[in-house]
């Protein structure tokens, strides 16, 4: 459900910063970063999301030797069985990200090793105009450093929709 161990690596920060279109040299250049207030290559604000890379069981990454629900020859790599319902990922609606909140106790820097723990939060339902019944569920992930100090608290809210969101 979460990574056991999330090493914060400079190369990973560089790739992440590129992908969000941020050319701030504090994410790329250790010498430049050393002269800034943070003093080190620092994680961009949403970087802990990339801890998914280190989560062995993360469901949204193809796994060696396991079926993947994205397209190959067919539109889905998983045959939809009538009884298996939406859980295959072949469903019409599926999960979307509704909210994300971070509290920074400090900002992770290259070289940190973070230890995330997840706890489920509330779940609630709502009738949506554009996508039918909405089921919201909250997860709180605490990222602690090697000393057990809290570094980042992340609260995410996911939503499963009854049907795709109307455009």
């Amino acid at each position, binding site marked *: 459900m979460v990574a056991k161990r999330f090493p914060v690596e400079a190369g*990973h920060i560089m*790739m*992440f910063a*590129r*992908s*969000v*279109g*941020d050319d*701030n040299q*504090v994410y790329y250049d250790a010498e430049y970063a050393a002269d*800034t*207030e*943070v003093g080190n290559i*620092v994680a*961009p*604000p*949403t970087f802990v*999301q*990339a801890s*998914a*890379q280190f*989560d062995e069981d*993360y469901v*949204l*990454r*193809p796994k060696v030797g396991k079926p993947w*629900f*994205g*397209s190959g020859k067919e*539109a*889905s790599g998983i045959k939809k069985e009538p009884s298996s319902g939406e859980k295959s990922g*072949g*469903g*019409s*609606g*599926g999960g*979307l*990200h*509704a*909210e*994300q*909140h*971070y*509290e*920074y106790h*400090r*900002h992770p820097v290259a070289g940190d090793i973070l230890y995330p723990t997840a706890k489920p939060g509330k779940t609630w339902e709502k009738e949506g105009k554009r996508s039918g019944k909405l089921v919201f569920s909250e997860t709180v992930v605490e990222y602690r450093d090697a000393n057990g100090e809290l570094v980042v608290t992340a*609260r995410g809210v996911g939503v499963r929709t009854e*049907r*795709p*969101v109307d*455009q």
Partner: protein
Amino acid sequence: MALKASEVKVGDSYSQRLVEDLKRTQIVQYAGSSGDYNPLHSDEKFTTEVAGYPSIFAHGMLTMGMTGKLLTDVVGDGRLTNYGVRFTNQVWPGDTLDATATIVALRRDGDTHIADLEVVTTNQDGKVVVSGQASAKLDP
């Protein structure tokens, strides 16, 4: 460079174009860096034929990440104390996104000066795609 409490006031706002004509390749790049390979963000065939959307769309977290650039450009590196958003509309390939952060409160927590900001990112049609709040430590 951090903001100085003595040089800002409530209502000050900062805007930035986050992306113009968002490319599918950037969405793929974000999938690679974040590790979220949900086919909804890269696999047109799956997304249109199985999931029932008109095309692939961006990760909400890509928009939150791009919006985070505005915040760190404004408040400085390592200065945020919190940052949270709601994803209000999907972001599609070809979208152009603009973000605005506005100071809504200036306060002190002990000796620390803090600014509370509201942040909104809109697409080329003026539709809000992300809206949220952030707080940051300021210099005196």
